[in-house]
């Protein structure tokens, strides 16, 4: 089970993502932004960070990196892709996922242990969770407010494509002003998932708020092994 992890100039969490893949029993394969080669991997993670300095818009320049020329059609063809934080921003800029991420409504950088509800446990990256399960993983971003027009939001909810929602605080607020408390979404097919919080920082005892992040990586590893067995 080989999971590619893309490094863009300014990626920050590529090594943590690769480590999480290994911790959960997979092989992590480094992918380089300048190569239009996915090296035959079974799945790809777009990691967190500040690709190209977040210049222009977060993810906007990374979206046109050579590796994306290979990744976009592969994702459209069913390759599992997980975008975490900046990776989620790259996925929306690539139009692999709808909506966009804008600056947090309160204008401050977040760095918190965040409770989320898993709403869709049937995607490639969430099958090891139960629908309705609450998990706690790290959230750290300055531009994590998920926005989309009403029609798109209704469509996402109607089709069960909201994968994670923030558990709002006592005042009913979520940590970044995301519309309808949306923390993560998927595409129609369920192979592409993007979320702002960071599962790769919650996979090891003693580091991070929980081990809840492991489910992302065990989900994809199991699914790939099962589909290989039936192929």
């Amino acid at each position, binding site marked *: 089970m080989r999971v590619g992890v893309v490094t863009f100039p300014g990626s920050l969490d590529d090594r943590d993502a690769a480590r999480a893949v290994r911790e959960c029993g997979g092989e992590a394969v480094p992918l380089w932004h300048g190569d239009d080669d996915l090296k035959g991997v079974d799945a790809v993670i777009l990691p967190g960070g500040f690709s190209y300095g977040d210049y*222009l*818009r977060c993810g*906007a320049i990374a979206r*046109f990196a050579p590796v994306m020329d290979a990744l976009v059609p592969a994702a459209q063809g069913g390759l599992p892709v997980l975008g975490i934080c900046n990776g989620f921003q790259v996925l*929306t*800029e690539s139009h692999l996922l*709808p*909506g*966009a991420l*804008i*600056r*947090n*409504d*309160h*204008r401050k950088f977040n760095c918190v242990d965040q409770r989320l509800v898993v709403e869709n446990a049937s995607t490639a990256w969430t099958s090891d969770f139960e629908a309705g399960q609450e998990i706690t993983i790290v959230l750290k971003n300055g531009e994590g*407010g998920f*926005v*989309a*027009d009403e029609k798109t939001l209704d469509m996402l909810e109607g089709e069960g494509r909201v994968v994670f929602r923030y558990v709002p605080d006592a005042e009913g607020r979520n940590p970044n*002003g995301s519309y309808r408390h949306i923390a993560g979404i998927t595409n129609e097919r369920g192979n592409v998932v993007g979320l702002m919080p960071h599962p790769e920082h919650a996979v090891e005892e003693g580091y991070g708020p929980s081990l809840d992040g492991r489910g992302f990586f065990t989900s994809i590893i199991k699914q790939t092994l099962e589909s290989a067995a039936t192929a």
Partner: protein
Amino acid sequence: MGSIVVDVMLKPEILDPQGQAVAGALPRLGFDGFTDVRQGKRFVLTVDGDVTDEHLGAAQEAAEKLLSNPVIEDVVSVHVLEQDSAEQDSAESDAAASEDGEQ
């Protein structure tokens, strides 16, 4: 050498935290009359020779593909930077000021 200006603004319905931060700072400086601030982006694309329709078409395409994200932003203007316009005068006076500085 000619230039093309591309102006991009967040869509009116999208929250603009940066504009709000600016709006919050203005009254502290005594500017009380502004009820809202929206912050946008201006790109100046320069070409060899005069700007042609082809350049303008390419700028429009670049504006839609890279310079803006249609989900949250509108391209509000793509136009030639006119020689006689105020914006050019201001660019020239900036250039003159920096030349003076070098001397």
